[in-house]
């Protein structure tokens, strides 16, 4: 994959932009009803009672590179708790606690009694390692992974921390930008990244007549999108915003080169993101308790407002 230094600049300026814009865009709270739950975790989940890879410290993981709005942070900066040699990430820096998943992880860790300096971050180089049988390198792994009952046979999922809508992103001049219904999408060449549920949505919901294209990752998929080999990409809405604003934007002109054409209703496909843990992990219950605390005391809603653009302005496909 070609090295894109522009991404780092984009990441930094977008961090500021998102923090500012996040307040300006009318924020919808995450679709989680307020619980009447406790504001602290139970004694069984006290810090010294937890079964961890490295007792006394949390070992957490996400993909490398890590993309916004889930993970921000500058790999060059030394954040508190970061080892001397750097985080090991080439894009994004989990030690920063910036970004939706990053902040959520820090909040869950805090609810369990861990300060940011007590977290060790390990990059997950190969996606399959997160769900391969055998001992994991992490306590839990957070990487926009959708909870699915079939997947839950191989791993433990935490409770959902985010509800994702799938969406379509295309270059501005492409005729697909005029589509408003799912029927109209069928004739176009659509693409998705491997290991995403986006490819399932294309096959199950859209069922296009043209052959679907699947790429190793979203970064690979951007090139054919720009050169016209595919008409549009299916990605979750937040990643679509990141692509439109940080990755595809032409720095010379103010008009974005890409358009988010529309989003899919949850009735088409619900994608709830959860953390991944080892199957049968004793930690799962405590992670869920901590997550409940984070939701209950309003922290998750704040994180949502800070990092997530609600996307209300993007129309739903009929």
């Amino acid at each position, binding site marked *: 994959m070609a090295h894109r230094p522009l991404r780092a600049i984009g990441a930094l300026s977008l961090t500021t932009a998102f923090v500012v814009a996040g307040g300006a865009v009318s924020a919808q709270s995450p679709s989680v009803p307020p619980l009447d739950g406790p504001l602290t975790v139970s004694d069984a989940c006290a810090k010294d009672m937890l079964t961890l890879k490295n007792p006394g410290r949390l070992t957490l993981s996400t993909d490398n590179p890590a993309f916004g709005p889930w993970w921000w942070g500058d790999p060059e900066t030394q954040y508190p708790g970061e080892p001397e040699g750097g985080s090991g990430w080439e894009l994004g820096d989990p030690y920063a606690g910036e970004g939706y998943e990053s902040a959520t992880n820090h909040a869950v860790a805090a609810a369990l009694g861990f300060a940011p300096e007590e977290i060790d971050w390990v990059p997950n180089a190969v996606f399959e390692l997160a769900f391969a049988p055998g001992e994991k390198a992490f306590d839990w792994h957070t990487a926009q992974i959708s909870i699915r009952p079939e997947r839950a046979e191989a791993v433990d999922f935490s409770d959902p921390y985010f509800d994702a809508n799938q969406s379509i992103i295309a270059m501005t001049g492409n005729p697909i930008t005029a589509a408003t219904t799912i029927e109209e999408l069928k004739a176009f060449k659509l693409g998705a990244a491997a290991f995403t549920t986006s490819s399932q949505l294309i096959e199950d919901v859209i069922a296009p007549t043209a052959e679907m*294209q699947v790429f190793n990752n979203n970064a690979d998929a951007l090139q054919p999108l720009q050169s016209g080999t595919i008409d549009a990409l299916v990605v979750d809405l937040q990643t679509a915003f990141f692509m439109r604003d940080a990755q595809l934007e032409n720095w010379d002109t103010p008009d974005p080169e890409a358009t988010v054409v529309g989003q899919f209703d949850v009735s088409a496909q619900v994608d709830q993101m959860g953390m991944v843990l080892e199957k049968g992990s004793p930690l799962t219950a405590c992670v869920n308790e901590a997550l409940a605390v984070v939701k209950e005391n309003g922290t998750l809603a704040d994180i949502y407002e800070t990092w997530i653009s609600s996307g209300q302005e993007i129309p739903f496909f009929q």
Partner: protein
Amino acid sequence: MGARPRRPLRQSRWAGVVIAAVSTSVVLTLLAVVITGSEGWPRVQEAFFNGDKFAETWPDIAQAFLKNLQIFAVAELFILVFALLVAVMRGVRSPVLFPLKLFAIVYVDLFRGIPSIVIIYMFGFGIPALGIDGVPDDPWFWGVVTLVIVWTAYVSEVYRAGIESVHPSQDAAARSLGLSGFQALRFVVLPQAVRRVIPPLMNDAIGLTKDTALVSFLGPIEAFRRSQMKVSADFNFTPYLVAAVLFLLITIPLTRLTDWLVARERKRTQANAR
């Protein structure tokens, strides 16, 4: 002198077979016991060797595997032809034709040296991005083109080895009979050369069958990608096993075919030996 094989010799050969069978069974049983007795075996079996998932995902992946076969067939055809051309270019001696020789040398050095993945990204994503009119942007096309370009480099060296292994006296004899350099090559040297390198050619063909999965990097869904999509759906690795079995179904017969061709060739040349 010239006595028929006596009883002890025939007996010792059967003894050899029995001992081989026993030792093989012992080794295999030991392996089976160690693997299935290990702590993580149930989880690994569930994740990698799941019978239900195997049966469930077989049809779709086998369907996608047809794409790999198509890519292989088209690519191999072009590779066999182009590689021969490059090998012949490499072998020209006339100074007038030196640019051809130089092209062949540079071509082989370049495309054997650069990893195929890099080339497929550069050609498959880079060239369509240039947006030149008339240049196709079909990922199937560029996938096949990349495979042809890369494997031609390897296979041309195989041909070259074959050509150089034909004794120069063959060429000399042909020319002394009045054949031109090209005719000597075409009618005397090449037929012998190509026959000699059938095993390595088949070897490279088998390598190509697996490289067809590279085309998936550009978007098209073939067996590897389809199995990956299945793995993604339920986090079970058995679909990869399905893909492996499908590839073996092709490569093992090809290997046996190679063995048969080699045996036939050996019998033929030994019969002609003086």
